[in-house]
């Protein structure tokens, strides 16, 4: 049994006009089936408005499904009394680092979550120490978040989630507002948590190069899952990816073009080294 299981999940946003009559219904999630095993690193790709963030908000019980079932860590999100347990076990990192840091000192912000769930004082300190260490922000613990870079702020936000010791962390476009260095920092941290703390990771993003090292990838569009598979399987369908308005990394794109021009290059090239190796073989012939 997976840690996250979405069965035929549907979510509709209902717009109402001034007289409170329904003026429009938007199906943000349309029959979504996603299953995640504990310890996996899963990525969900999609452009703005594809429904990926709506899905993320369900995992943390911030939104409730219109139809279908969503079970997180064995608990149905539809049941009101499960909400606190679900939020404790499925932490969430949001897009804008400024709008999710509550305290004016780094360590106090990391302690905010444990305070909310009633962790005893001594243990809060232990958890804060460990989480700051896990994201590599220990030396900034006394700093004000305002003086940190975007990537560092985002790592503080991650530490705040880690301190609640969740089984699973959902990253909802954590890099969309960061510069390239910040983006690398955040993705590296996510992988580190996955490997060292065995936390299940769900990364939601529109940057394809960030999903190269994931275990499994879902591509969403218009509220539906339109592609799924290992990164290699996904990256080998360059034409389909372009159709879904995704940004195929240059190396994958080049490999695909060269293959179409008759060179002997395997499908689904993810990294530069792979393309160099494939081209070396072509040279030898």
């Amino acid at each position, binding site marked *: 049994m997976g840690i996250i299981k979405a069965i035929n999940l549907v979510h509709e946003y209902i717009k109402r006009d001034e007289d409170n009559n329904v003026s429009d219904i938007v199906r943000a999630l349309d029959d979504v089936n996603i299953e995640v095993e504990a310890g996996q690193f899963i990525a969900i790709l999609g*452009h*703005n*408005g594809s429904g990926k963030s709506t899905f993320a908000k369900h995992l943390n019980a911030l939104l409730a499904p219109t139809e279908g079932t969503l079970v997180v860590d064995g608990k149905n999100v539809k049941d009101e009394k499960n909400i606190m347990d679900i939020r404790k076990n499925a932490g969430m990192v949001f897009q804008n680092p400024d709008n999710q840091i509550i305290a004016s000192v780094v360590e106090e912000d990391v302690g905010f979550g444990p305070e909310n769930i009633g962790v005893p004082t001594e243990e809060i300190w232990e958890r804060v120490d460990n989480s700051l260490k896990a994201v590599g922000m220990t030396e900034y613990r006394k700093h004000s978040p305002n003086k940190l*870079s*975007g990537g560092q702020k985002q790592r503080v936000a991650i530490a705040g989630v880690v301190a609640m010791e969740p089984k699973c962390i959902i990253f909802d476009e954590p890099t*969309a*507002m960061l*510069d*390239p*260095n*910040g983006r690398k920092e955040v993705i590296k941290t996510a992988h580190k948590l996955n490997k060292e703390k065995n936390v299940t990771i769900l990364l939601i993003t*529109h940057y394809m190069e960030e999903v190269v090292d994931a275990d499994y990838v879902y591509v969403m569009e218009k509220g539906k899952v339109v592609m799924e598979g290992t990164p290699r399987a996904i990256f080998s369908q360059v034409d389909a990816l372009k159709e879904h*308005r*995704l*940004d195929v*990394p*240059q*190396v994958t*794109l*080049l490999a695909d*073009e*060269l293959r179409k*021009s*008759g*060179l002997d290059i395997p499908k689904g090239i993810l990294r*530069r080294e792979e*393309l*160099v190796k494939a*081209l*070396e073989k*072509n*040279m030898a012939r």
Partner: protein
Amino acid sequence: MSIILDKVNYSYSVGTAYEVNALKDINLKIEDNEFIGIIGHTGSGKSTLTQHLNGLVKATSGHIYVDGEDIYDNDYDMRKLRNKVGLVFQYPEHQLFETTVFEDVCFGPKNQGLDKKKAQLKAFEALYNVGFPEKLFYSSPFELSGGQKRRVAIAGVLAMQPKVLILDEPTAGLDPAGRDEIFELLAKMRKELNITIILVSHSMEDVANYVDRIIVMNKGQVMYDDAPREVFKHYKELEKMGLAAPQVTYLMHELKEKGLQVDETATTVDEAKQSILRALGR
């Protein structure tokens, strides 16, 4: 119209322990109808530099000449400068405030002292030039998608008919498709409206495909100022500054090391493809 920067320095918090030299001895010449990318990581001084170009920030020392006139002369009219050099900031949310898109775009021309009719005409033209759909002219700017908001923000400055249009991170927060649309739009505007476009970005890969000239900023200084393929020759130095060259540049260098006679200055996928096929004798 040309802009010349002569030994421009800018520091803030002068005289305190926090003094920072945000710009150091900047010399630049910007000509008519150029398409320039200013690249640098956060805090490199790239945004500060652009704010000098339309007088929002005043240099601590040095001179800026626009059309041969020193903008720091006492009798120079800053309004004139802002009419010539338009600046679009990173977040459209920072400038949209009117109840309708059309009204919002009228704001700039009205500030220029144009009467209502003329301002509306300019707004209409600008919205047309950024490819904004007519059926959304009278909707609220707050209800648009990210890409549409960006277009309205650009139109808001374009309506003032600047000769130079500067855009700070015009694609931040947009998805790949939205990003490409904005870049295509800028390339088209430069051609059809015959204006200079300067875009500030931290992404080399995005910019390489579109601009003719890249200015790399690092620690308040201009490190490189050249055509993209010349700038990317320094890919190792760029990496030290926290900037990466396009993936293709790295790949081409690695192939050359392996003995394949490719053109390592290729910066786009298409150039790389042609070069590799040629080197393999296809």
